[in-house]
């Protein structure tokens, strides 16, 4: 016993007089906190927000978005030419570009990277594989990409992480790379402890403006509660993705923190499987859409932190038009009655959701919609859930007739909010199985022309048809929120939702 006491005492002494592990000025680093998790930092595999966002800070591509806008400008490409038929893209690449390890970045590297993505067939590969016929280096600084068909949003895809170049000397051509990424952006990864933290340091070989803060440490928390506690305790300088609505509301009143809010291109919707009974009936779908009170969902569950949405194209994007009917319960009741439903013979349906994929508010959303539909007195709505993997399986097999889904764009173009939802060959992937020849024609046409004005007009037409048919009930558009200590500068709420750690300073 005595010996144990002595041991503890000496341990305490050693600890209190021991050396410190790191000595840095407080200005040298910023600590961010998140609840997101890394899957893979190989651009060929990364396909969810956080991994992509890290890549956006440690890598670059041919083109990039101007921070805070949706405007695309050249990055590693000096300029490019598009053939008249819109299928051949020829890029001139800047000279003297280097990876963080000193290896050069040139046209060969780009051709290698694009072909590698297509060969590896990972989750996001279809973005390139579906349209790219070939990619080759004409000379050291000239890259030629040939498309299978003219495709207007292609430049947007090039701004996405899937198109980032990787070092052929490090990344195997036929395998996903799991090591520490070789950087081409403002930062490089110094330390990666999965599920715990990621340390980013300046990339000494970066060709652009160097990152404002030498070190960014991103702490990963399991859930919003942990993130929030870390924020309140001062452990982190900023919290990005994702605090719970009630926590955000509370922290907004807290003078010790500053909250930044911006629109997110993320949308949520109810999907109807039009092949499943009784959802094949457009009138019934419309009736239900009248009964959904988006404002209540936004206000009570999300504390106003989402924006009600009445079309699939989010606000802030060209082509957006709120076309769907707003909440009108009397109309809903009238339509349901005209369809033959009554209090004694109500419409009996099941609403599905997935409990964790869209955060812990999801069950509340499902329950609130259930309650809203039942408020008509003519609907009996059951609520069921399935874990994500099962959920995906269910909707692709058409098991679920009515379910909640969300959409985060792969590239920033209205096409990405219309085609996957409404085009005949794409809609089964959304679980809707909706098909409309007129819409198919319009969407195809919108892909081949480049004029934004003309394309926007085509999308308006599509949305109008959609409003009548209601194969989806769009619910709301997300917002992005950053809560930071007041001394943190450089936080930009980007419409494309690229969070740029390299612009942060304090």
């Amino acid at each position, binding site marked *: 016993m005595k010996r144990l006491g002595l041991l503890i005492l000496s341990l305490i002494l050693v600890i209190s007089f021991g050396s410190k592990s790191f000595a840095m000025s407080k200005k040298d680093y910023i600590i961010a906190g998140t609840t997101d998790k890394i899957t893979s930092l190989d651009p060929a595999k990364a396909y969810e927000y956080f991994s992509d966002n890290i890549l956006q800070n440690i890598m670059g591509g041919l083109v990039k978005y101007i921070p805070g806008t949706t405007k695309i400008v050249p990055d590693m490409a000096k300029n490019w030419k598009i053939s008249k038929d819109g299928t051949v893209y020829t890029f001139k690449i800047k000279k003297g570009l280097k990876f963080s390890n000193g290896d050069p970045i040139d046209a060969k590297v780009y051709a290698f990277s694009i072909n590698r993505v297509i060969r590896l067939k990972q989750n996001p590969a279809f973005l390139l594989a579906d349209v790219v016929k070939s990619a080759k280096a004409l000379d050291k600084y000239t890259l030629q990409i040939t498309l299978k068909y003219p495709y207007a949003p292609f430049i947007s895809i090039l701004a996405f992480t899937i198109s980032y170049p990787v070092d052929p000397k490090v990344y195997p051509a036929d395998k996903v790379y799991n090591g520490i990424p070789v950087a081409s952006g403002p930062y490089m990864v110094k330390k990666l402890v999965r599920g715990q933290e990621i340390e980013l340091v300046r990339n000494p070989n970066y060709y652009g403006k160097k990152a404002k803060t030498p070190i960014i440490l991103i702490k990963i928390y399991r859930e*919003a*509660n942990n993130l929030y506690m870390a924020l309140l305790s001062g452990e982190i300088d900023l919290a990005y993705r994702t605090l719970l609505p*009630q926590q955000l509301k509370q922290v907004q009143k807290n003078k010790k923190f500053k909250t930044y809010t911006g629109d997110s291109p993320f949308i949520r919707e109810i999907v109807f499987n039009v092949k499943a009974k009784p959802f094949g009936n457009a009138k019934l779908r419309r009736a239900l859409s009248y009964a959904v009170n988006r404002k209540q969902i936004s206000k009570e*569950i999300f504390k106003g932190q989402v924006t009600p949405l009445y079309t699939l194209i989010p606000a802030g994007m060209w082509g957006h038009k709120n076309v769907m009917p707003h909440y009108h319960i009397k109309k809903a009741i009238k339509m349901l009655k005209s369809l033959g439903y009554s209090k004694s013979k109500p419409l009996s349906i099941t609403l599905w959701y997935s409990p*964790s994929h869209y955060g812990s508010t999801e*069950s509340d959303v499902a329950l*609130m919609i*259930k309650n809203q539909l039942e408020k008509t007195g003519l609907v009996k709505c059951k*609520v069921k859930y399935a874990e994500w993997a*099962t959920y995906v399986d269910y909707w692709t097999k058409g098991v679920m007739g009515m379910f909640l889904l969300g959409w985060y764009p792969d590239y920033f173009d209205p096409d990405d909010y219309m085609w996957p939802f409404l085009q005949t060959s794409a809609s089964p992937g959304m679980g809707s199985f909706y098909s409309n020849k007129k819409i198919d024609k319009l969407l195809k046409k919108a892909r081949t022309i480049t004029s934004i004005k003309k394309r926007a007009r085509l999308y308006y037409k599509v949305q109008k048809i959609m409003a009548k048919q209601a194969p989806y009930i769009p619910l709301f558009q997300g917002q992005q929120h950053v809560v930071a200590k007041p001394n943190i500068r450089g936080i930009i709420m980007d419409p494309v939702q690229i969070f740029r750690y390299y612009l942060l300073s304090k």
Partner: protein
Amino acid sequence: MLSEKIGKNIKQLVGDSSGIMFLVGLFLLIIFVIMAVFAPYLAPYSPIKPTGAPLLHPQASHLMGTDNLGYDVFSRVIFGSRMAFSIAAIATVVAAAIGIPTGLIVGYIGGKLDSVITMIMDSVYTFPGLILAIAIAAMLGQGLINISLSIAVVYIPTYYRVIRSQVVTIKSELYVEGARAIGAKSPTILSKYVLPNVLPSTIVVLSMNIADAIMTEAGLSFLGLGIAPPTPDWGYDLSKGQQFILQNDWWLVVFPGLAIILIVLGFSMFSEGLNEYLNPNIGEKR
């Protein structure tokens, strides 16, 4: 004679600590049983409909406040007892219905079958039950029956082991030998001689298991593998309430948590007291 015996037993029950424990446990259980049986009369509101503004503090109209959708917490706690009892009952009954006969028969037959089944049962028994239940619950999906079944699987070995080991001892005892000698058939021996001798200890195990099953269910619900909302369930409400704990909405966590604690306490005190009553304490010999 009988009344005298009962009187003496009651006196003994109240007389010492294990008796008190038994009575307190019984008292708690009776309260929960009343809650479950008379839930519709006791609960002021429907547990599955919004009945007020969201996140009301405990107050006269909502004794335990409301949750973020405006559901009445008090009503949900009361109705939650039904869920706890149903799951625990189904799980233990299924486990017992499989474990007891298997243990009886396998223990009685013995031989290779015995060693194989016992090895399988022991493996499941040694393995962390919750982890197995998680895997099975994930497979079966939501719902009362499915959750109960995944919990039941975990407890089958418990019954099997208790019964088998007793059967093996009883089997060699004289009166069974005697019964066999006079030509009784195996089923007769099992049901007439072995089962009655094994049952008392089973009752204790059963009661302890119910407490365990309620805990496991709460754990599954907490991990998001339990009962689908809006069905009132303490474990789900607790995990949901955890999201509001930093806003000091303590009532969402405290009340369902207390309900779980008290019912588990009830069952374990009840079974502990019962156990000591059936197998008097070794300490007395000291």
